[in-house]
C-alpha cells in the first residue's frame, strides 16, 4: 500500500496522532520554557550553581528514552504510563538547550552596558528586563529553536509509553516490518520539525533586525 492510500484510508487516526504529537511538543516545550529561562537567569546570579546544574542537565540528556521511561513508570505524580510520563521525559530533554542558551546569552552581555544601566540607577530586576533579556533574546531564542525542533523528533518516543503521537506509526511499523507505516509516522514528524525550525528561524531574524 502506498503512503497516500494509507493516509486516505486512515485519515482520522492520522490526524488524531498528529494532534497528539503537537500537543506533546507544545506542552513539554512550554514547561521547559517556564522552567528553563528562569533557571538560566538564576545561574547568572548564582555562578557557583552553574557547573552542577548544567552538568545535571547534560547527564539527563544522555539517558536513553526507554531507560528514562523505565525509571519514571513507578514514580507517583510524574510517572505511570500515558501522556504525563512522555511530557516529563520531553521536558527533561528540552531543558538543556534552553537553560544553557539563556545563561550564555545573559553572561555574554557587555559588562560596560550593564554598568551603564546600574549607573542610571536600575534595580537588578530592571536591568534584567530592560537590558539583559532584550540583548540576550537572540541567543535564548536560538536555544528555544533547538529545543523545539529536537522535541518534535523526540516526541515519537511517546509511542513507547502509551501516550500516542506519530511514534505510534513508527513503532507499529518497526514491529510489523512495514515501511509504509514507519514512513507514515516519520514523514509528518520531519515536516513538523522543518516547519518549527522555519517559523522560529523567522522569529530569530525578526528579532535580530529589531535589535539593529
Amino acid at each position, binding site marked *: 500500500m502506498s503512503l497516500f492510500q494509507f493516509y486516505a484510508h486512515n485519515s482520522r487516526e492520522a490526524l488524531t496522532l498528529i494532534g497528539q504529537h503537537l500537543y506533546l511538543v507544545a506542552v513539554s516545550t512550554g514547561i521547559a520554557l517556564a522552567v528553563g529561562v528562569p533557571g538560566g537567569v538564576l545561574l547568572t546570579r548564582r555562578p557557583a550553581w552553574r557547573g552542577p546544574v548544567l552538568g545535571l542537565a547534560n547527564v539527563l540528556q544522555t539517558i536513553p528514552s*526507554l531507560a528514562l*521511561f523505565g525509571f519514571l*513508570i513507578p514514580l507517583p505524580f510524574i510517572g505511570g*504510563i*500515558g501522556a504525563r510520563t512522555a511530557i516529563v521525559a520531553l521536558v527533561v530533554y528540552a531543558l538543556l538547550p534552553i537553560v544553557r542558551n539563556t545563561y550564555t546569552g545573559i553572561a555574554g552581555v557587555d559588562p560596560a552596558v550593564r554598568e551603564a544601566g546600574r549607573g542610571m540607577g536600575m534595580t537588578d530586576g530592571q536591568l534584567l528586563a530592560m537590558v539583559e533579556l532584550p540583548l540576550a533574546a537572540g541567543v535564548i531564542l536560538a536555544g528555544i529553536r533547538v529545543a523545539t525542533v529536537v522535541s518534535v523528533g523526540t516526541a515519537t518516543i511517546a509511542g513507547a*509509553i502509551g501516550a500516542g503521537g506519530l511514534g505510534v506509526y513508527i*513503532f*507499529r511499523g518497526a*514491529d*510489523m516490518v512495514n515501511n509504509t507505516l514507519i514512513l507514515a509516522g516519520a514523514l509528518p514528524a520531519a515536516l513538523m520539525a522543518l516547519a518549527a525550525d522555519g517559523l522560529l528561524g523567522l522569529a530569530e531574524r525578526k528579532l535580530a533586525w529589531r535589535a539593529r
Partner: protein
Amino acid sequence: MAGAVTGGRRLALACGALLAVGCARGDRVVVGAKNFTESDLLAELVAQQIERRTGLPVERRLHLGGTFVCHRAIIAGKIDVYVEYTGTAFTAILNHAPLADRDGVYRAVAAEYAERFGLTWGKPFGFDNTFAIVVRRRDAERYGLRRISDVAPVAPRWKAAFGYEFLERADGFAGLARAYGLRFAAPPTAMALGLTYRALADGKADLIAGNSTDGLIQALGLVALEDDRHYFPPYEAAPVARADLLGRHPQIARALDELAGKISEDAMRRLNALADVEHQDIAAIAREWIARSLP
C-alpha cells in the same frame, strides 16, 4: 546489459567459491542462533551436546540476526544447525496462515523443510515460546486466576497494555478478546513491549501479553496464564539441521534426540532468567543444565 551478465557470472563464481570453502571446512559442525537470549542459549546447549556425544569440533555463530538471516545461512550451508520455532517456520518462512493444531504444524513444517530445503527438523525440546497472557502473581492468587478464561469476570475493572505487534497481528489481541470474551475498562494501551513488564510489575497496568518463556516473568513476580482455549498457535522449539550433515554423521541426530522433551516452559523461563536477569554466562548455564539433566 553485458555488465549485468558479467556481474551475475561473477556472483555465481563467488558463490561457487564460497560453497567450495564450505565443503573444505571439513567436518566442523557450525551451530547458529537468532539474535535473542533464548536462541543463543539453546544453540549453546545443542553445541555442547554435539561436542560431548560425537567428539566433532563445533563452531558457534550465535546472535546472527532474525529468522530470515538464520534461514538463509543454513540453506547456504554457512551454518549446519540452529533452533527454530514451528509456528515461525510455518507462517514466516512457509507463508501459511496460523494454525492451532500443534502436531499438524510440526508435521507440515518437517515435511516441507525436507522437501524444499534439504533440512531436517529434530524432535521438539518440550516447550512453546508463544505469546503469554501475564498478570501479577498477587492478583492471580487473590482472584484465583490460573487460565485466561478466568480473567473475563475481572477484566472490566482492569487496564491492559500491549506491545504494537500483539495489537496488530492476526493472532493478537482482537482475536484473543473474541476467543475469551475479554472486555477491559478502556481500550488497551499501546506501548513498547519491554516497558509493559515494568508497567505491570509497578501496578500501572493489570494484564499484558509477553513471551511465554521470558525470564522477566519470574523475576518480576508475575505469572503466565494457561491458554485453555488454545487460541495462540503453537511455537514449539526444535533443532533444524542440514540433512546432508545428519547423513554423514548419524550420531548428531542421536545426540539431538536426547534433548527431546527435556525442557519445559518453566525450565526455559528459568534458564532465560539466569542469562537475562542474573547475567550469567550462557556457556556456563548450558554446561550446568546438561550436567544436571542429561547424565
